[in-house]
């Protein structure tokens, strides 16, 4: 936990007249498991999406591995996300028309992997997350927990250095949520990826190395 991987300094972000982030500063180390908690509307998701380079803050700096994210063009940030980050959202957000294995293979295909090789790697990840049997099923036929495991495989398939997860267990029952968390932590441990996770759930936050609590757009 010594190498600083992500650094945010005095980050501000507003939606119209509502300030979602009011000068947030935060450091995340390589391999660290960080939980961002707080009540609804406190700015948790905005912070996570800003750290992942998905949202662009109005003021402040966010650096990843020494590179300023706000200096990068949209195309460069897109490529960075594709290669270095994995993103898991509350409802999985799988592409509904693609099968599970195609969803998982998609990030590799975007990186110009051959279809056969991308499929092979994707199936491997689905097997590791105990979702091998779901490979040829479309998202509409998956349960919430199954869809989240597929989304997790999709986030992990490029071997990212950071996994950003926004309430990954928020829409799941306790058992399914536990399975997804175990899978996420096991995979991150195996690959050495850092986890930055937004959660409402204290039990989920307790698994993290560190918890950051947000309140009204600042770290409490």
């Amino acid at each position, binding site marked *: 936990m010594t190498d600083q991987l992500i650094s945010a300094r005095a980050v501000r972000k507003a939606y119209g007249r509502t300030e979602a982030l009011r000068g947030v500063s935060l450091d995340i180390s390589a391999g660290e498991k960080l939980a961002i908690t707080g009540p609804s509307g406190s700015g948790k*998701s*905005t912070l996570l*999406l800003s750290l*992942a380079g*998905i*949202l662009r803050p109005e003021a402040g700096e966010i650096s990843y591995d020494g590179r300023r994210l706000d200096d990068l063009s*949209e*195309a460069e940030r*897109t*490529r*960075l*996300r*594709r*290669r270095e*980050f994995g*993103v898991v*959202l509350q*409802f999985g*957000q*799988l*592409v*509904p*028309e*693609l*099968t599970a294995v*195609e969803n998982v293979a*998609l*990030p590799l*295909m*975007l990186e*110009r992997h*051959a*279809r056969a090789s991308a499929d092979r790697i994707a199936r491997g990840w689905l097997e590791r997350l105990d979702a091998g049997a779901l490979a040829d099923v*479309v998202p509409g036929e998956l349960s919430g927990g199954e869809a989240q495991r597929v989304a997790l495989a*999709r986030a992990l398939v490029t071997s990212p250095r950071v996994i950003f997860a*926004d309430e990954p267990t928020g829409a799941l029952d306790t058992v399914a949520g536990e399975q997804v968390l175990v899978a996420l932590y096991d995979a991150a441990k195996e690959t050495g990826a850092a986890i930055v996770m937004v959660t409402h759930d204290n039990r989920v936050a307790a698994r993290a190395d560190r918890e950051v609590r947000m309140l009204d757009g600042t770290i409490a």
Partner: protein
Amino acid sequence: MIGLGWRLALAAGQGRAMLLAGCTAIVCGLLLVTQTIAMLPQYPDESLYSVVADAGTRGGFAFGAAMLSVPALLLLFQAVRLGTSARERRLAALRLAGATPGEVRRIGAVEVGVPAAVGAVAGIGVFLLLRLFFGGVSMRGCCEEGVTFYSAGVRFVPTSVTPAWWQFALTVVLVAGLGVVVGLAADRRVVVSPLGLTRRHDPRPPRPWGVVLLLGGVMAGAAMLVFWRDSDVVDVAAPLVAIVLLVGGLVSLAPWTAYVIGRRVARRARTGPVLLAARRLASDPRPAGRAAAAVGGIGLVAGGSAAMVAGILDDVQPEDRGYYLGAIGLVGVALLISLVAVVGSLAVHSVESLLDGKRSVASLAALGGSSELVARAQRAEIGLVAVPMGVGGTLLGAVLLGAALAGITLLWLLATVAAVLVMAALVWAAIGLALLLTGPWLRAATDPGNLRTA
């Protein structure tokens, strides 16, 4: 109810209302032109464009004018679905406020019916404008009876005859009603509940019933030409009936084509955009099929025209060619106008598919998929249906219409190849133009910020 429907029609956006009104205005204007041409006596006392002036070819021109309303109606079908997401929220809110399903359906019909009716009335203006700019020039009293006057310019709307007031009224009512029917057809699978709206997805893959129409077209045309060749009426009617059946067949084959191509390409796709496009086509082929449906019909007429050109160059004396080639040139202009309507249909489909899949598009962007990637997927989705439909239609037209009427020669082969290449290029350009029009929606849809709100 009408007041509420009107306010909702305005809430749906002026762009959508204007597009709906524009489509019905064009259809109404074209039908009035068709009727006016049909009312002409054998020797009208005005100078008109040769094909209209000649009683023998006039029917074919009127038929072509009426057929031009097909792409406009297909665009209307697409336009009804424009802004569906916001409309769905409005209708669900109405249900929550206490409206019954029947009331919501009626409000939906008014929402489409009002702009359609306004457009139909405006169609009279379209007709008058066409008559102003392309109207025949009166020759009354200049010569004896029984003379056909040919104009130098493209004057194809008769001015010596005018439909009666009841014909205007009937056409307006018919077109407005047609607009409502098309609107209701677009919404027939929609179930609005107070908690939101669901679209009853038809799980059955489309069937190639259009082949029956295609075969019907071939057989009807062939039978009439073989058995009643001597009849002047059948000689003109046979190709027209065949064209209607063939165009109908191609239009109804479009969703099946989308489904078959989607399934086949998905298995072999090597890139992300093509895989996304093919799977979208395979899982819901009807919207893309409908958007590209008119391309098949356009190709059919283009292929037939190309073969006819070859026949004219082979058989007709050079000094007489101008008459026929001019008429075919007019067909080319009509096809280009139809292609503009197709651009509109493709653009509306593209916008709707982006808005329908807003959340998955945003998550794709979060994964590292750029807006260029989504644009490539959109282009592939439309291209996978539209290009084969255009090329297939052109080949069919060249073989069935052209070869039957003009014969198969080396010139026919060259004309067919040229027509296929031009059609493929035009369809590709139309897709590019449609995507250019949808650029702002595409960039908005791929904004990862949508993950917060989508």
